[in-house]
């Protein structure tokens, strides 16, 4: 007993049992599910020469698709962060009839097949749809424009922010707010200096998840985007198009770039996340 304690201490892993099997499972899981499929992407892309690779990933039409995808995804994540916080706040802080139903509705975008969402959104916002009919005379075109892409991304990303912020608000230390009030803080100061900073890490997590989801979204967007090259064509669609033309290497090259950009952005967001929680116990 004493010897095994000493040994695990020397290894620096504490003495919680079960490290070997759980770590083994974690590695196996990540290897089979994430790393192996993704690495074949790199192998496939590596069959291209450098010139071919650059030609495939930096063609004007491809560059435009990056802008549309990442731009719309960022905007959608920002929108979701804002409205998601309001929805979470409403659900946690107020008691009203129908709250449970509203709470359940939040998860619907998770469960709905994305194609259904895309078709429904396109139907509503088309020039002869319910909302399209109202918006079009005002000069706002949603369906078959980049705005439609943004809208679809907002739809599929909303639950992420709500579901990450909600538990944090539920567990929130109300006494911190009361303390701030006793110290003379007004409602606005309490929100900006106490409530929001404490909520920020959760909002950032929700933002990151919503963003990642939006970047990878395909099913709902293709129905509402219009898919005009250079204007409203997203990168995932471009990859599919290339596959349909049997340009496997070109498709994987674009996929690799998308993967790297996503990874970099997620890494930055995670670092930001860590920074925003610098006060927490180690």
């Amino acid at each position, binding site marked *: 007993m004493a010897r095994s304690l000493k040994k695990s201490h020397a290894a620096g892993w504490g003495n919680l049992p079960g490290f070997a099997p759980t770590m083994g499972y974690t590695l196996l899981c990540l290897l089979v599910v994430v790393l192996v499929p993704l690495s074949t992407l790199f192998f496939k892309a590596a069959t291209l020469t450098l010139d071919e690779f650059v030609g495939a990933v930096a063609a004007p039409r491809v560059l435009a698709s990056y802008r549309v995808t990442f731009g719309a995804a960022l905007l959608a994540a920002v929108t979701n962060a804002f409205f998601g916080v309001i929805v979470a706040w409403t659900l946690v802080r107020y008691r009203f009839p129908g709250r449970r139903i509203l709470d359940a509705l939040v998860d619907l975008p998770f469960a709905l097949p994305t194609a259904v969402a895309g078709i429904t959104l396109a139907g509503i916002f088309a020039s002869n749809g319910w909302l399209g009919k109202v918006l079009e005379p005002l000069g706002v075109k949603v369906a078959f424009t980049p705005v439609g892409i943004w809208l679809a991304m907002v739809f599929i990303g909303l639950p992420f922010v709500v579901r990450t912020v909600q538990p944090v608000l539920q567990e929130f230390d109300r006494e911190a707010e009361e303390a701030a009030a006793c110290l003379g803080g007004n409602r606005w100061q309490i929100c900006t*200096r106490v409530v929001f900073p404490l909520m920020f890490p959760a909002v950032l997590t929700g933002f990151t998840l919503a963003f990642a989801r939006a970047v990878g979204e395909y099913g709902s967007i293709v129905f509402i985007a219009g898919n005009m090259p250079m204007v409203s064509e997203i990168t995932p669609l471009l990859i599919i198009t290339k596959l349909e033309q049997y340009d496997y290497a070109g498709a994987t090259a674009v996929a690799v770039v998308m993967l790297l950009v996503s990874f970099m952005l997620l890494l930055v967001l995670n670092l930001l996340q860590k920074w925003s929680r610098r006060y927490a116990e180690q």
Partner: protein
Amino acid sequence: MSIEIENVSKRFGAFAALEDVSLSVPSGELVALLGPSGSGKTTLLRIIAGLESVDEGKVLLNGEDASLHDPRHRKVGFVFQHYALFRHMTVFDNVAFGLSVKPKRTRPGKEVIRSKVFDLLKLIQMEHLWDRYPSQLSGGQRQRVALARALAVEPQVLLLDEPFGALDAKVRQELRRWLRQLHDEIHVTSVFVTHDQEEALEVADRIVVMNRGKVEQEGTPSEVYDHPANPFVFDFLGKVNLFHGRIDNGVAQLGGVRLPASGSSSGTDGSAVGYVRSHDIDISRHGSGSDAIAAQVRGVLRVGPLVRVDLLHAGGEQLEVDLSRDAADRLALQVGEQVFVRPRNVRFFVNDYQI
């Protein structure tokens, strides 16, 4: 600033947290609200702070109706049991918070805030920890920061909700002595809530004993300890032994002995209960006189500076007696041995009051 509470009642659903409570705290005093959990003491404190509204009655701060003001204008400092520090802020920012949220007209400059915060950190002996986050501090340090934060805005009333409840015994004792000294220095009217009678007796100028939403007794520590108004107060402050018996014509019959019932709460006859503190009972081996009660030693336990003796007296009731080590050593009591107990300072309450 003085605090007047006039006929305050508060209900939470069907539960009456406070029933017609009146209380006055003169300016500059340190008052303890003492009671078991659920007695309404925290609710009363939160009502004074304005964190809770009253259903009936009034709270006057300095003679002015406080219900006109929300918490941020009441000039009260509130210290929470679990500190309620802003955990995303450093110690410095926590203490500076109250000053930095003041309206622009009255907000002191950055340098003034800085020097004031450091003065307070010096007061709580934590200047060197100014850039730590609350998660990096011990419980006692966190509570001191919470106190400094409350004092920063120069409150006219300091309210503390079980301020030492979450701390371990040693730190608790240090901190409450420190609080007493601090109060002697700055003389801010203070009210603190506690369920620990020792804490209340040691720290407070006055003690308000509460039970079931009502004030049972109010007075100086020695008044409430030495002259409890009713069985509840007697029982709640310190250990107590009960002798069940009768009072007839001013003489009490308890466990086969007769005692003059001078300490009766009322002059009436009837079945009565005698209350004796555990340190107000003498034990001897010789039973002389009519006031000695035969008893059997059931257990002897050394508890720190005291020796606790469990006895069963002739009337069939359990007794718990605290002896000093010296007295216990002289007696050298053996478990099972027959002795005689002689209660001093018996208080009688005629049985119309159930506890």
